[in-house]
């Protein structure tokens, strides 16, 4: 067995111990023996680090400054411009996700037999954190409203459509001019309105 063969299966050896052939190589090869010893030491020390608190932001800023000075990373411009619309769109998406999550919880509860008359614990369903409310989610929400509050069903349908149109409109403008702060605010508000629709649709009524 060569050192390369041994090191290829190193993680497995550290975790569970090796086969006879690997054990023999470890005993005979001082390089691999030292490597395993070092790795085990690091693993032990790493366990002790777990309860420690995160370094303060000053430490991270220091590291960032060093990396910038050494040319490893580019200095950040104005934060909003550098990041573009994606992070805050994700934040807005998260707002909708929260409401959507509430919707799933509520729907899960209502699917319990006799849920309306007897208080049942909510059934928490898995929600993907990588998606914001899609057309399918909207459809499910409208089905939920139609079943739970038929008198409000039409209002939800038309207003959800209106909000989706406003989101599309603001997005289109923002794509044409990413620096348009007012369009960005409009998009922000439109997402807020959509989140409100989800929240209103899932709130508890008789």
């Amino acid at each position, binding site marked *: 067995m060569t050192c390369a063969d041994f090191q290829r299966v190193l993680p497995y050896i550290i975790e569970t111990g090796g086969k006879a052939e690997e054990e023999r190589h470890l005993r005979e090869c001082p390089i691999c023996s030292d490597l395993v010893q070092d790795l085990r030491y690091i693993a032990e020390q790493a366990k002790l680090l777990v309860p420690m608190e995160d370094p303060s932001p000053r430490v991270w800023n220091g590291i960032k400054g060093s990396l910038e000075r050494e040319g490893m990373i580019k200095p950040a411009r104005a934060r909003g411009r550098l990041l573009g619309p994606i992070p805050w769109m994700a934040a807005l998406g998260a707002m909708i996700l929260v409401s959507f999550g509430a919707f799933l919880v509520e729907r899960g509860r209502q699917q319990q037999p006799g849920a*309306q008359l007897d208080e049942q614990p909510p059934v928490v369903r898995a929600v993907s954190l990588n998606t914001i409310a899609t057309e399918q989610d909207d459809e499910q929400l409208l089905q939920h409203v139609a079943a739970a*509050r*038929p*008198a*409000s069903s039409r*209002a*939800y349908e*038309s*207003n959800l459509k*209106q*909000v989706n149109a*406003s989101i599309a*409109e*603001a997005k289109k*403008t923002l794509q044409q001019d990413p620096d*348009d702060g*007012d*369009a960005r*605010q*409009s998009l922000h*508000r*439109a997402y*807020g*309105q959509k989140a*409100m*629709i989800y929240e*209103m649709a899932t*709130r*508890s*009524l*008789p």
Partner: protein
Amino acid sequence: MIGRERPRWLAGAMKMQNTIRTALGLVAVVALAIPAAAAEKKEFRYNVAPGTSVTVVNDYGSVRVRASQARQVVVTATASSSKVEVVSAHNANRVEVRTHFLQKAGESDGRVEYDIQVPADANVIVRTATGPVLVQGVNGDVSVDADTGKVEVRDSNGHVRARTVSGPITLANLKDSFVEATSVGGQVMLNNVAGKNVSVNTTGGPIAFAGDFAGGGQYSLSSHSGTIDVTLPASASVDVTAHSVTGSVENDFPLNPPAHPTMALAQGKSLAGTSNAGASSVHLRTFSGRIRVKKQ
């Protein structure tokens, strides 16, 4: 005498007519008795401490909450049928009134009308679907959610939050308030609303504000495609900015141009200026809706 005697056929017909009249009368009595029996009225009274929260959850009927001098919460509830009942509870500083469906019911037979009196310092939370809501004279925190129901909050000076999907919102005579009004498609009207923070947001619902923007507060009115109409007196002390991304901005209120503009001004799409000391900050924003500022 013989000449005055009724013919036999006429007497028979009259007898028949009396029988029919009696029968119709009985039917009428029964018809009146059915709704009288179905519409059940209940009253609950609770002695409450200052700052009590009153929560009302109702799907279809109206909810009227008014402040009274007494330190009592008085709930009068009228259910439209036996398919619904009213559940009310008082725990510590909390009164909860809720419509409870015993059977499946729609808008007509699931309706409960609430008339509630609360101390002026009470906090009020109302959640409805289609029923109209009126909260009057309450100075605690007020939160009203409705789907299509009309929401009206007046004569208050607490924190007011009103949200609807398409129901219109009317806020009137609110002083020193913290106001949040949000509707997707409903109209939002504010008359003499003043406070440190007044925020209105709609998607397509029009916004109308009439008042002097008093209190040196921050006023933010925004809509995506709805119109914004602001009517203010010459005495208003405001610092106004308005902008529409693709809509228009019209103004006939005399404003002094800002010394240090904070936004690029485009003719017909934005405006900025102050009046008097510019005590209150007023932001008007739409995406495509028309903004109009008018002198009262």
